[in-house]
């Protein structure tokens, strides 16, 4: 299970055993525009699948960031808090949001794979 998965809220998640790294997709950053503010969950906090786990703001508006699976926040990426423009530069790589210890690995099954997500994003582009 190390295939990257995607949520309908435009987050990506890369599992590694029972841990996972979460971020927002390139498509999401393109819809948001220039990101100028990022707020992440507290380290050690518990987040619930599809619940709010942060906020990003562009010059235009604020958007919630959701977690695609439940778990405990192990680590957050302070770099994107200090310089949110990094999120536009490399959203699906170095600009990850947080790392989780997953509560229930089977929650991953409901998520989309890359092809499914690309299709979904194309249909929902606005």
């Amino acid at each position, binding site marked *: 299970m190390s295939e990257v998965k995607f949520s309908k809220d435009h987050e990506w998640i890369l599992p590694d055993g029972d841990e996972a790294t979460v971020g927002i997709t390139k498509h999401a950053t393109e819809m948001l525009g220039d990101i*100028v503010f990022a707020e992440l969950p507290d380290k050690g906090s518990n987040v619930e699948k599809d619940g709010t786990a942060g906020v990003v703001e562009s*010059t*235009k508006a*604020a958007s919630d960031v959701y977690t695609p699976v439940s778990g405990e926040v192990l680590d957050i990426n302070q770099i994107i808090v200090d310089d949110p423009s990094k999120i536009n530069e490399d959203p699906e790589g170095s600009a990850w949001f947080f790392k989780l210890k997953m509560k229930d690995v089977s929650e991953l099954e409901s998520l989309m794979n890359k092809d499914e997500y690309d299709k979904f994003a194309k249909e929902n582009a606005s």
Partner: protein
Amino acid sequence: MEIKKTSLNKLHQENKAKFVEFAGYEMPIQYSKGIVEEHKLTRSHSGIFDVSHMGQLFIYGDKTLTEDLEKIFPLNLKNLNINSSKYTFLMNEDAGIYDDLIITKLDEGYLIILNAACKDNDYKILSNLLENKYKMNLDDKRSLIAIQGPKSVEILDSIINGVSELSFMIGNWFEYENQKIFVTRSGYTGEDGFEISIINDLAEEFTRKLMDSGAQLVGLGARDTLRLEAGLCLYGHELGVDKTPIEANLKWAISKDRIVNGGFIGSDKIMRQISEGTKQIRVGIKPEGRLIAREKTKIFNETELVIGEITSGTFGPSVSGPVAMGYVEKEFSKKDTKVFLEVRGKKYPANICGLPFYKKSYVKGAIK
């Protein structure tokens, strides 16, 4: 109602504009570069803004028109020179603001630039007040293009010789392709620049010429961050019928003799507010850290009482941080007063500050 398009719509599309509906028009919020870069290139070089959705109202008349307009606007129009412009307001009897506008005296009357969302209502109000005595033309055959930023004077002068001689808030008629265009040295970004009123048929090719000379298209998104950094009000946010020019801290825009003598619509309230003060006033607000407080964010004092509300808030690319404006109760309006902003259920510290957030250094080459 069908969405309206400006004469530059094709050009916007060609340049990969993201469109939004604004006051019934399909307008570019940004192009492929994005708001931050468009903002910065306006401050460092030259940005082109399609503001053709705004109203261009020509009113034709002579001395009696000037007298009648002085009964409406808080300006000394008799002493205004031909081709000079003033920022002012159309108000109701209670000094509530129907619109904020730029009025320019012409040989044959006046040109008034109105906000897009207000222009039809303004036209009705003005034609009633003027009792249909004068010929009025809310001209939709002309586009309005703004070019803003330090290189704009050089770029525009290379196409329309002589514009560099205009002073701030002064305009004139120029010839372009055998057509009359009206150019004023003005804008709404805090930068040196011009606004050009040009017939629709020439608008696109004229804009292409500006682009060929190095200016770049900039969307309404950056126009908003630019005006907010410059501390300028936006109708529907800082200004509305529930606000007066005194509350909006715009007393400077009212001619001094009119403050003393009154005689314009809303003058009683204005004179009373000047002598007695207002309950609330517009201020600049600087959140600490990177937090962005948007419109309608509640403002609290240190004892957790609500003392006001944000009217505009965003990230200011040139100040590299969040910026906001809003209204607070007078006693909390002093610079450096500590306040708290409630965002997503939490309170964050901020400080009342002077405006503008960004002040132009006019030394050439000082801003990179």
